[in-house]
């Protein structure tokens, strides 16, 4: 029985580890898409954020400064996306693809500059803290191994990502600015006619998504592992994008989609370890198949913001 509970703890713990970088990124993606701007440059922003996070955490020896700078790095790339798509009405997909080249290129260029020509950083001296770690250990509230430790003794990034979803939900549905942002995504001309600055809101939304994608990247490089390497971010940005769509452009939906994906990963690893009689290559498709089945079966029809991807030009309107 205890072994079974521990196994469950392992699956939940793995779910949280896997989902966290995706939750940051997917939440940011909800914000920008609700304002009407598609951001498929998430992968590039995560990649750059993962590098900057690890590099700054290495040189300052402080994971928090690294984490913050990773967000700023993501926002920096998003600024280019915003300038191209909002100010110059460029095709949003094309700009996003450009960001996906720019992010890794910039990261590797800087990596070579600061790390003696290497395409990876050195190991950071201090990782993200485990804020509840003081509760676990000999003579403490909980044992240092077992279910409680596996589920609740997580990195600070894990708690932050969940809190972020609540903040994003509150922002979108309970604040005036959030409502305005969604109005811009539905009908920018109408919003404009009511005196809302479409450009300013969209700039803010795109850069917020960049900031959060940068945090998502750093959640990989300074919590899941403790350095950046050139294969660390491989597809996470696209999975986050899919999670946002599966979550019907809502923060809580995106959170659920990320958790389902992470949970399926945990289940896959668990089954693989138990010697489940299925080849590991087939088992490896489980997270993708399971996510699609659950979400298609459950979520049903979803509707993107009406003005998504469409060019808004105040001059012509």
């Amino acid at each position, binding site marked *: 029985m205890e072994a079974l509970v521990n196994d469950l703890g392992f699956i939940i713990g793995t779910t949280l*580890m*896997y989902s966290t970088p995706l939750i940051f990124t997917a939440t940011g993606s909800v914000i920008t898409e609700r304002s009407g701007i598609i951001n498929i440059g998430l992968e590039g922003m995560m990649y750059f954020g993962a590098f900057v996070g690890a590099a700054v955490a290495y040189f300052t020896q402080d994971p928090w400064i690294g984490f913050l700078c990773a967000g700023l790095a993501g926002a920096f790339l998003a600024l280019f996306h915003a300038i191209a798509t909002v100010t110059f009405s460029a095709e949003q997909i094309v700009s996003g693809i450009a960001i996906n080249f720019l992010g890794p290129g910039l990261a590797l260029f800087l990596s070579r500059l600061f790390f003696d020509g290497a395409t*990876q950083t050195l190991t950071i001296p201090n990782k993200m803290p485990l804020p509840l770690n003081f509760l676990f250990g000999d003579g403490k509230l909980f044992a240092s191994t077992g279910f409680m430790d596996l589920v609740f003794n997580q990195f600070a990034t894990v708690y932050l990502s969940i809190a972020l979803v609540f903040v994003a939900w509150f922002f979108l549905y309970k604040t005036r600015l959030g409502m305005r942002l969604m109005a811009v995504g539905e009908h920018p001309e109408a919003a404009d006619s009511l005196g809302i600055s479409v450009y300013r809101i969209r700039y803010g939304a795109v850069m917020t998504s960049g900031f959060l994608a940068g945090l998502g990247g750093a959640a*990989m490089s300074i919590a*899941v592992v403790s350095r950046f390497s050139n*294969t660390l971010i491989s597809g996470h940005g696209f999975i986050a994008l899919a999670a946002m769509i599966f979550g019907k452009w809502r923060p809580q939906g995106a959170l659920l989609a990320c958790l389902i994906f992470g949970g399926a990963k*945990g289940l896959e690893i668990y089954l693989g370890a138990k010697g489940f009689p299925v080849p590991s290559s087939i088992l490896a498709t489980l997270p993708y198949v399971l996510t699609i089945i659950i979400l298609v079966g459950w979520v049903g029809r979803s509707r993107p913001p009406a003005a998504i991807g469409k060019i808004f030009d105040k001059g012509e309107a």
Partner: protein
Amino acid sequence: MRKAHTVHALIIGLVMVMCFGGTALAADLGIAMVTDVGGVNDQSFNQSAWEGLQRAGKDFGLKVGYKESKQDADYGPNMETLTDAGYDLIWGIGFLMGDAIKEAAEINPDQKYAIIDFAYGDKTPKNVACVVFQEEEPSFLVGYIAGKMTKTNKVGFVGGIKFPLIEKFEYGYMAGVKLANPKCEVVRQYAESFTDAAKGKAIANNMYQQGSDIVFHASGGVGDGVIEAAKEKNKWAIGVDKDQNFLAPDNVLTSAMKRVDNAIYDVAKQLNSGQYKGGQALVYNLKNDGVSIAPTSNKHVPANILKEVDGLIAKIKAGDIVVPATSAEFDKFK
């Protein structure tokens, strides 16, 4: 940024031409390599290859150079560029370049090529030398160390993607563990990825939780997660391809190394003495210093065990021990 490298290489090349005079250089042999997407400072294969090439360039007075690939689609064009630049031998670093090298070799039958980690079997073009390693040998040695040092009689193996190359690591390791400690169980799991560090961490976490105290990985970037798990749980991990102790100095016990540099150097030596061996696979193993265990092993592995390992190396070199590389060979082992 790679353009910047090319520009630098060109400038350095020009300076060299000016210093030594064009005629002298034209007579020299030249060897160049195409890196995979990791780039020349990847702290792994590409870097090791470039070190070997530079060493050969110094020792034999060769002209050496490299061209980095940004993406898989660059392999072919990079090979063409180097072919046009007049190098005598062009290397592809890594099995990903298998098709590109073959294609280039067929288009340019007079140009010599070589590739790391890939063999074409009977279909090897006459102008391609294939370098392969007996990965099972260093895996066997680290397996022996793991078998001797485990306190729980349970050790783990994390593979990247399951195919014969990675299985060589798996079965070599298992044989080493078995020889050292027949009672020791080996838990094995494949990540089906070479990049998913989070998966490597989860798999290793689970192995440590289930009682393994040493985990060996042959899984590229996935291994970053394996080593991370060892560090967080204060257990042992065993690295692969290069000496990975620098990633977690207190938790990486040893590493199963492929000496790509030595192989490149050796082939350069052959070329320099007019004995280029195209059209066949060149096998690198303990005997010709193509593989080894990490030099930092003595940090954590007791001297008496390392002495036993030296004994095993001598036996393998002499052919007294044949290390299994497949499931079938492992079943017959002892």
